[in-house]
């Protein structure tokens, strides 16, 4: 189906089709949990886990699923992996699980995951789907990391809990509050669009 090379299949998720900056998917967790880098990272990894495994399963059983019930089956598959992720986090990383609260179960309705199944895994081989899911996950983790780094550094003056700003710095509390998420994401989207236009014009 896809005419890209394996490398391109992976790289597209990082920029060209980056789920957050280019496709504006999965904005709910992106906005909600990126106040601290550790939360953003955990959220990104949990989503990656769900995305990669659902892509593997969906692409391997795509031939058996009648198209009328495909969305229902995808959701069941995704929900399974989400629940696994949720339970495991609660068991092994109780603190992060508490911080992320309902956002882990909410991965079920993250558009990135269902979107990739519908747009890619249901039409491509297992190998390609895996690479695609890997690329998309990396793109998502990357976006969350950028966003949460900016917010944590400006909002608290720390990165992953380590003090990075000097004592002269007065933390911008707004950055770890919900408005900070909107401000940062808005500005990042603006910059992404600007870069996109520039590269397009050059071509």
């Amino acid at each position, binding site marked *: 189906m896809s005419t890209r090379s394996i490398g391109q299949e992976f790289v597209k998720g990082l920029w060209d089709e980056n789920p957050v900056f280019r496709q504006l998917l999965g904005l709910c967790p992106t906005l909600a949990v990126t*106040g601290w880098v550790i939360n953003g990272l955990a959220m990104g990894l949990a989503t990656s886990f769900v995305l990669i495994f659902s892509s593997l399963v969906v692409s391997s059983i795509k031939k*058996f*699923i*009648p198209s*009328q*019930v495909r969305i*229902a*089956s995808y959701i*069941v*598959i995704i*929900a*399974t992996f989400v*629940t*696994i992720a949720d*339970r*495991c986090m*609660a*068991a*092994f990383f*109780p603190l992060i699980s508490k911080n992320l609260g309902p956002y882990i179960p909410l991965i079920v309705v993250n558009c990135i995951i269902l979107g990739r199944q519908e747009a890619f895994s249901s039409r491509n081989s297992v190998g390609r789907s895996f690479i695609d899911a890997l690329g998309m996950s990396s793109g998502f983790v990357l976006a969350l990391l950028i966003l949460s780094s900016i917010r944590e550094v400006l*909002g*608290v003056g720390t990165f992953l809990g380590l003090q990075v700003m000097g004592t002269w710095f007065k*933390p911008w*509390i707004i950055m*770890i*509050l919900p408005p900070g998420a909107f401000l940062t994401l808005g500005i990042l989207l603006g910059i992404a669009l600007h870069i996109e236009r520039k590269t397009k014009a050059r071509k």
Partner: protein
Amino acid sequence: MSLSARMIIVLTFVGLLSGSFLATVDLLTKERIELNRQREIEEAILQVVPGTHSSQKLYEEKDLTVYGGKDKKGILVGFAIQASGIGFQGKITLMLGTNPSIKKINSLKVIDQKETPGLGAKINDRESFLKFWDNKDCSNLLTLHKPAVKTQEELSHSEINTITGATISSEAVLNLVNSSLNRLRQLEKEGSLSSEEQDVN
């Protein structure tokens, strides 16, 4: 095979598979999650009632749970009250430790809060807020000292420090503490604090 039959079979199959998977995961993690939850409460009780060897749930109602802490000999060393109330942005859950006579607060611990980070969230900050609760006489109603001070010495007997710029959050904690202390005294008078022999450990 007709389409509807295939649909039913596929969905059933997917559902069964998912279900069995989840059941396995649940089996594997259930105990740990429960353990985590218990450990959290236990640690909190240990913190607010020092010298606790074992603790028991003595009383439970909506937004208020009372635990009794006992030392090795089984003598009551203090009460731990887990109470929840509305703060500036959302629910605040506290763990409050008192001596057995409910005359003195051992210390205060914030279990859960959704206050404004950097502002109301300082109710979870020892330096500016929590340390002022340590060993506080609570035989009288506690009041808030405004504006904020730096050391315990600047406060009078039954005064508690405010957080600069977060009067509402400070007040919420204060009210929560005052009301749960009152409730605890009332419960003790009624004798409802009989041990239900429900060991938390």
